[in-house]
């Protein structure tokens, strides 16, 4: 009799218990230009917004972070109880580790399981793990690291780009538009004579095309748009902002600002990771800084994300010029100095060509089963994809209309109504598309 009662009690107890789920970690890397969007969306993956020092930690400058400790910081970690829509990971804690090293570099480290040093849930403590997913401003198919086999790729949103000129004034006032043909000729050589704009053969001084290092998704969108492959020639000129001259970058030594003879401008990155991709400017912010050097010798132009271009010049988008006579927003030249919202109708309608699909590269099998992985504990069901509701990517990268909380799509939607407007476009708003980076736009 006693035995029967005990067995019944145990059976009831088992029936009433919910399955215990393990804590899970997501390691995010990739695009520096897109990091703020990722950060903002991730903060909403938790039932309680992350709190600095308690459930939110930032990496320091030596570990890929900075002193800002906000969405622009490239190294962070946030943890907590996942929101209810993350049904595939209920019952345990979710910890998201972010370390944004650049688009191409991010995809390469995910696919080649290269360990990176991430911030953790303890201040000043770091862990070395392989990244789980990577965001990129350019599709992996346009790089040496296409997502194949155990890795897949999906679109996240659309990133607008613009041509921007330096604040030098003087002869730069001649540059009010840039054509596709000018860039096709100019990208390999890194510069064009001013006569290309003035039609005056006597204007033999050069306008320099400032470029990112080869791991940049922005650069890939730019060169691919001009029908160049990843390995095709791009001559990098660096502006020595102290002595006010341009020199050809031919090495991988860096300076934080342009300084001859260093071929890389910007932070060396964790473990000098940014010094493995040839000469050039490390970040879009570094190019923005170059364009802001107001000196008569700084005759330069660049292809920048709409977010980075906002800060070049005395007011929002003050230095943006048209491309093939077209502007990225319905305001036309009114984007210069714009403080209102951005209407990207020229892009969504298929007129303005400077844009790319932000993509996400992720494992399509259990991340913990990828040969060479370090520190992965997610299953494929838990990580999922944007087409699998309840998974992490089924929320973070969901593109439903209306958008769901916790998604990047939702963050873009929220930014559309605020000033000075969104810096990305939701996929559901696009009335046109392109099948390849820089490829034909239809319709």
């Amino acid at each position, binding site marked *: 009799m006693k035995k029967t009662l005990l067995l019944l009690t145990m059976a009831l107890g088992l029936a009433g218990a919910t399955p215990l789920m393990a804590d899970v970690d997501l390691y995010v890397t990739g695009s520096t230009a897109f990091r703020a969007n990722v950060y903002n969306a991730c903060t909403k993956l938790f039932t309680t917004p992350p709190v600095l020092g308690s459930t939110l930690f930032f990496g320091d400058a030596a570990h890929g972070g900075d002193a800002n400790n906000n969405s622009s910081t490239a190294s962070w970690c946030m943890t907590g109880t996942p929101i209810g829509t993350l049904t595939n990971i209920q019952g345990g804690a979710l910890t998201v580790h972010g370390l944004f090293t650049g688009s191409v570099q991010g995809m390469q480290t995910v696919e080649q399981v290269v360990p990176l040093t991430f911030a953790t849930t303890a201040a000043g403590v770091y862990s070395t793990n392989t990244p789980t997913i990577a965001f990129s401003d350019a599709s992996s*198919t346009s*790089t040496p690291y296409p997502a194949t086999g155990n890795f897949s790729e999906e679109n996240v949103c659309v990133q607008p780009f613009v041509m921007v000129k330096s604040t030098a004034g003087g002869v730069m006032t001649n540059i009010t538009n840039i054509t596709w043909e000018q860039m096709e000729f100019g990208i*390999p050589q890194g510069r064009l004579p001013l006569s290309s704009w003035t039609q005056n053969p006597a204007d033999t001084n050069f306008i320099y095309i400032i470029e990112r290092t080869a791991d940049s998704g922005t650069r890939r969108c730019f060169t691919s748009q001009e029908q160049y*492959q*990843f*390995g*095709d*020639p791009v001559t990098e000129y660096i502006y020595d902002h102290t002595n006010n001259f341009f020199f050809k970058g031919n090495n991988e030594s860096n300076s934080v600002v342009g300084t001859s003879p260093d071929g890389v401008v910007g932070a060396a990155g964790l473990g000098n990771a940014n010094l493995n991709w040839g000469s050039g400017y490390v970040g879009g912010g570094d190019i923005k800084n170059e364009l802001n050097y107001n000196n008569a010798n700084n005759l330069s132009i660049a292809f920048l994300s709409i977010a980075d271009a906002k800060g070049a010049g005395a007011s929002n988008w003050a230095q943006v010029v048209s491309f093939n006579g077209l502007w990225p927003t319905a305001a036309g030249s009114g984007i210069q100095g714009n403080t209102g919202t951005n209407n990207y109708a020229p892009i969504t309608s298929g007129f303005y060509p400077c844009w790319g699909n932000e993509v996400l590269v992720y494992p399509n099998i259990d991340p913990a089963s990828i040969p060479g992985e370090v520190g992965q504990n997610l299953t494929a069901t838990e990580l999922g994809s944007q087409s699998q509701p309840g998974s992490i990517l089924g929320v973070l990268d969901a593109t439903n209309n209306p958008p769901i909380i916790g998604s990047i799509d939702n963050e873009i939607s929220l930014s559309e109504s605020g000033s000075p407007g969104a810096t990305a476009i939701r996929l559901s708003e696009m009335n046109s598309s392109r099948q390849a980076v820089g490829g034909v736009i239809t319709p």
Partner: protein
Amino acid sequence: MINKKTGLIALLASFAASALWAGNFSGPSSYAVGDVLVCFRNGGADDLVVDAGPVSTLISATPNQRIPLSPYYSTSQFNTAFGNANAVSWSAFTWYDDSVSPVSAQWTLFVSKARASLNKQTSPWVAASAASQENPALRMGEIPIGAYYNLNFNGANTSTAVIDQNSSAGNPNYPFGDSYDDALTGNAGGDFDNTFQGNPENTTPANFATSGTVVRSDFYQLTPNSGNGELLGYFEFATDGSVTYVAYPSAIPVIKSISHAGSTSTINYTTGLYGTYTLRGTNTLSSGIAATNWPAISTLTSGDVLTHSYMDTDASPIKFYIITAQ
């Protein structure tokens, strides 16, 4: 005058220093600008890229000197890449960048052009401006970078001959640089992505390996803004996959017509850009002397492809003529 000579010597020394050093593919920067790249492809999985040494070696060769490329690659490597020499497309090229002096030599191109007829020189490439020649040169420059990153791709590879994959686009084996195929074709499909005026390649017939005859491509130097390219020689591709360079080749001389008046015979002839051409004559064909050893009458005008005349005064009632070249 002394100053002028000194200046000239200085210029030559400077030019030589930048162009004579031979490179290879053993390091990311070990290729020496000015080394001739001889590249092969057949539309299959792999290409073969060869660093054939400094172009200055070819420039300084003597007329009709034959320079085999066997020190730089072997037919064994060639066969590893392609199996045989049938339907293989190949070209030879190099360039001077903006590190050479004098400035007028910067962005000089050296590019091959396939002969349609084995013994007939092609119409030359035409030199363009330095700015126009810079872009094809920059595309050429991606090939040795790609070769370096593929040095270990095939076990037959050496520091001067690399078998690498035909397609570099989306290929992890090419973190930097391009394959020969991609550098040449690009988005436009050929002519170094349409940055050059024409096709530098020579494509062998499908039965070439058993045809028993070679094919040739002329090799032109295109100094910016210099008009017609200067013929330096030709590359000769043999049925076993080997290549030999022939410097400043003599042409086949032609006696266009002969007229006779009194005791003077007027011979109209053509020679060639390079070589020494000798008019020879004899009064009999039964002397037993080979035609190439008939008595020399005169060294003929050469250095162009124009028709010239020579008047031979000889009272003999009959005379036979031949022009020999060397």
